[in-house]
């Protein structure tokens, strides 16, 4: 029902999430991704959520936990492409996700991970 892909791009794992994610899908993603960070020695994780209609508290916590686990494995996480209506809803839900790196586009996210964020 959901399509999630992980592509290794230089030393960054580019994760694309699309469609309807069950809670189990989200947990599976967290486990697979954390294993991949360790086995690939990735320096960064870029999660593209532009294909998600909603992010509820379960998925938000999963994104937060992925970032926390990746940090322990020496990789930075950036979430990119969140839809504006999803951002509005998350704030109202009470989830501002402090500490989670964000960028608007995949390109901006890559720059952020490479430590060369373009001046805006």
């Amino acid at each position, binding site marked *: *029902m959901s399509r999630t892909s992980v592509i290794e791009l230089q030393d960054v794992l580019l994760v694309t999430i699309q469609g*309807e994610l*069950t809670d189990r899908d989200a947990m599976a993603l967290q486990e697979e991704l954390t294993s991949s960070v360790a086995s690939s020695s990735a320096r960064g994780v870029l999660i593209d959520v532009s294909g998600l209609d*909603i992010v*509820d508290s*379960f998925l938000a916590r999963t994104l937060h936990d992925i970032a926390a686990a990746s940090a322990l494995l020496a990789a930075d996480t950036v979430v990119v492409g969140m839809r504006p209506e999803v951002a509005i*809803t998350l704030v*109202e*839900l009470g*989830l501002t996700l402090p500490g989670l790196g964000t960028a608007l586009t995949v390109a901006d996210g890559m720059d952020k991970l490479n430590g060369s964020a373009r001046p805006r």
Partner: protein
Amino acid sequence: MTDILTVHEVRINEEIDIVHVRQAARDLAVSVGFSLVEQTKLVTAASELARNTLVHGNGGRARIELGRALDGTPTLRLAFTDTGPGIADIDQALTDGYSSAGGLGLGLSGARRLADDFDLDTEPGKGTTVTVGFRARRPARG
């Protein structure tokens, strides 16, 4: 007062049913012209409450009513009913960050904030019904 136009029921017995509730809520909201932000809020609230029904209430059902207010505004009402253990301390359950299941504790309080109307009916040992209501706010037409 609200006229009820259609009623849709979804059983919540397993995890995939949370997805079914989200899809049913979105389809109905889209069909009467809720805006994208309104759709996102109500689908997110539906997701939180469906998960509560499954995790805390040991399953139950969602009843989704599409209606129309007296002024013609489309309304969507979602009632989540379980026959689980009920909620002993309602104030605590509605407190941000309180969770009895290791979650973030934002499901109930967050859904309440997202909704235009909120109602909680619970009895320890009998079960819980949580109802949220949404009204479409169409831009004024000139």
